[in-house]
């Protein structure tokens, strides 16, 4: 009598664990195709890039191909063009993210109230984000910035007459020309996320605070801003990931000229025009390291948002 259960458990124990193991694989199966693809297309190439970054490898001089230690990294960190590209990337990203985050916050606050045509204004605000980036960059370059027939100088003539200043926006302010064209597209993105944040505020608590005599400003600084913080971090982080990689605007508006080549453009040029595979790879590794530095700081906060979301 007493042996039966022991026997049973002894028999069923390995059985259960093998069942569990096969259960594990049954659970993993649906995940595998996606994971294998992601691994082969995003991870493996990067391993290759790391390898290539330590090589002297220029397609124009195939005979000289070989290991060259850290020479490419030395070039990336000392060559004026490459150093400039790192600096431009940091400046461009920081300027775009901060300006569009600030504008996005103000506009989200403006749109977070009921007024006549709220939906129409929201739709108008989203429009810039829905223009294909190359098309948007072409629009700014030719239809707005052009010194002869662009809308900006045209409006200056219209308002101030024939003696109005007619600046050549792109050659006089190349960086700002690019920054504003990108800000125009990314402000709606920031606005959308912050607006979603505003609308997720617990309104009953806000109402209670108002009844207790809190002023609008007090509610904003003590309740709205702290609640929005994680949304601002999320918007800032996602914006950074996308803007760091910007290629379309730089390529279209200045073709990387006038000191506006950022790292993605520099890599494209080194690899596509210069055919210097080793140097392009080293620059690629630098972009990744830069992004990892930014993201490890920010990733934790974002992950905590997702965690909270699950609760």
């Amino acid at each position, binding site marked *: 009598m007493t042996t039966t259960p022991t026997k049973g458990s002894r028999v069923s124990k390995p059985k259960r664990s093998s069942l569990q193991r096969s259960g594990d694989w049954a659970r993993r199966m649906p995940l595998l*195709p996606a994971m294998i693809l992601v691994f082969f*297309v995003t991870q493996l190439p990067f391993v290759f890039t790391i390898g290539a970054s330590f090589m002297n490898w220029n397609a124009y001089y195939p005979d000289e191909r070989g290991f060259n230690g850290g020479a490419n990294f030395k070039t990336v960190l000392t060559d004026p063009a490459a150093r400039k590209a790192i600096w431009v990337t940091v400046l461009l990203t920081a300027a775009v993210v901060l300006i569009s985050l600030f504008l996005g916050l103000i506009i989200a606050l403006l749109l977070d109230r009921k007024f006549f045509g709220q939906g129409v204004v929201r739709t108008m605000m989203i429009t810039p984000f829905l223009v294909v980036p190359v098309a948007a960059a072409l629009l700014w370059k030719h239809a707005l910035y052009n010194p002869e027939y662009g809308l900006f100088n045209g409006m200056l003539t219209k308002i101030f007459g024939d003696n109005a200043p007619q600046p050549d926006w792109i050659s006089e302010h190349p960086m700002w020309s690019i920054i504003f064209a990108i800000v125009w597209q990314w402000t709606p993105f920031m606005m959308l996320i912050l607006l979603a944040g505003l609308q997720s505020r617990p309104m009953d608590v806000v109402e209670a605070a108002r009844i207790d005599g809190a002023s609008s400003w007090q509610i904003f600084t003590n309740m709205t801003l702290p609640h929005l913080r994680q949304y601002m971090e999320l918007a800032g982080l996602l914006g950074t990931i996308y803007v760091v990689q910007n290629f379309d605007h730089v390529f279209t508006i200045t073709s990387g000229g006038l000191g506006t080549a950022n790292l993605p453009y520099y890599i494209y040029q080194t690899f596509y025009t210069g055919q210097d595979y080793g140097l392009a790879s080293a620059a690629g590794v630098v972009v990744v390291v830069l*992004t*990892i530095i930014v993201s490890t700081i920010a990733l934790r906060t974002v992950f905590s948002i997702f965690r909270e979301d699950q609760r």
Partner: protein
Amino acid sequence: MSGKTLSTGQEMNIKKESRGGVILSITAWIVGLLFVSPVLWMILTSFHSEPAAATNPPSFTAPLTLDGYRSFFDSGPWPSLINSVMASVISTLLVLVLAFPAAYALSIRPVRKWSDVLFFLLSTKFLPIVAGLLPIYLFAKKVGMLDNIWLLIIFYTVMNLPIAIWMLRSFLAEVPSEMLEAAEVDGAGLILTLRKVVAPVVMPGLASAALICFIFSWNELLFARVLTGTVSQTAPVYLTGFVTSQGLFLAKVCAASLVVSLPVLVAGFAAQDKLVQGLSMGAVR
């Protein structure tokens, strides 16, 4: 007495608020119009004749014409538009087919260490894709897939997979486990459970994921430019032909930019609420 003063005070408060409210509403309208005005200008210019499009000061009332569109469509954009449709539609479908089971395995019947898998997928989005440009180019060259639209389709699929898995998982996580258990007790098979219990919750998630994957692959330029040539170039690559000025061509540029942006504009307007979910990978609803 006191009741009266209170009510007048309230009245004044409401009046003051509404006056401030009017100013805020007008400000909102002005800001909205400012942001949309470049697009309105693009639309207007695309319907002007080339000479009228290039005047300074701008002519807002010039006669409208379809010449800009005619000269754009005469320049042979159809192959690139068809390539773009293929690359974005097929890759979006592939993403959904691959992402749904993966999201299922990360939420409803989760694998062990599912949060590590999610974290890994998120981290791949932090790896700038430009770092993979060279190896993918060399691989494509080696296997003879350069200038082949299927290479772009595969690449866009993988580029968007992590986003789609994240989004779908966040929706699947909301399927109440009691309902799944109840379905199991009732003897419902996997297919029936998926259709009756899971699908209603996940459908909006599928729509957001599809929208965002479509937009991202339709917009992509860098890889399309490097990996395609004359045969399989996409619409954004076609647009780069307008980077350098070619005399009077503003109406044509505006027409081209508008035509290429149209699918994204239509999809985005139609699914405005899905946009935020997609962009934030499901974190913001």
